[in-house]
């Protein structure tokens, strides 16, 4: 597992370093746009997987309410830390109530 972790870390680091080594003129707008779209698609997928699935099954539970609370706070421009805390608190609270 340590080897897998190190390989994955090097893979991620390669992107970080690449940006400092590539001359800027090689980066086209369409490539920039593609990167933004990849990020959006991946983040949306992570929200969905982390929030709505458990062990390979779709599951709607307290996390859905936590995401709703987070979305409302984000729309109100609440600070990031508050959004994360409120998400955790909403889920923990609902579970404490047995929901």
């Amino acid at each position, binding site marked *: *597992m*340590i080897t*897998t*972790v*190190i*390989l*994955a*870390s090097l*893979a*991620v*680091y*390669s*992107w*970080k*370093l690449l*940006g*400092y080594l*590539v001359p*800027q003129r090689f*980066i086209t707008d369409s490539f920039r746009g*593609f*990167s*933004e*779209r*990849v*990020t*959006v*698609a*991946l*983040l*949306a*997928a*992570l*929200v*969905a*997987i*982390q*929030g709505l*699935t458990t*062990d390979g*099954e*779709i599951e709607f539970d*307290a*996390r859905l309410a*936590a*995401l709703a*609370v*987070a979305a409302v706070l*984000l729309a109100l421009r609440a600070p*990031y*830390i508050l*959004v*994360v*805390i409120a*998400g955790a*608190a*909403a*889920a*923990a609270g609902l*579970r404490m109530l047995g929901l």
Partner: protein
Amino acid sequence: MRKQVLSTSISVGLATGLYGVSFGAIGVASGLDVLPVMLLSLLMFSGASQFAFVGVVAAGGAPITAISSAWLMGIRNSFYALRLTSVIGPRGLLRLLTAQLTIDESNAVSAAQGESRMQKLGFWATGVAVFIFWNSATLIGALAGNLMGSVEQWGLDAAAAAAFLGLLWPRIRQNWQLALLGAGIAIATTPFLPAGVPILLAAVVALVPFRGAK
């Protein structure tokens, strides 16, 4: 001005620290030992990639799937680096350190500053603050994870989902169709595909050109 940048950097560091506790706890809950969880925070040092990695591991996915999910998730750091090259202008070995600190938060705080001196300060202060808080928090989460019972009881799984939503939020307005499609594909294919693959599949939809997408 300087003070303001430093206080923003520290508050961003604290916020990431909180979500770092989630990462540490979720990491050990996914079956990893404390050491690999710590190595992920120290070496990979890119939250979304780390969550993608442990998500695949937790669900019993293959190592190559875990590596490629983390790798794909890290593409955007390359674009932050492109922007930061002109702001920081690192030379020689300093590039290696600058690259490691190139993440969502350091780039975002830097980009939010007007003057170039403050942009530079924003990058370094946030990068260092997040590195310190993220790694200490991961250690706390990983050690406490075994003691404090389930990740669910404390809502830490929901905290991670909320944190991703927070990162996605500023980008969602321009790309909401893509976000819905990515999330929908990931959810719909989760019951049928090996862990991690739904996330990669969501990345493929980014190839589809959208009307109005930038």
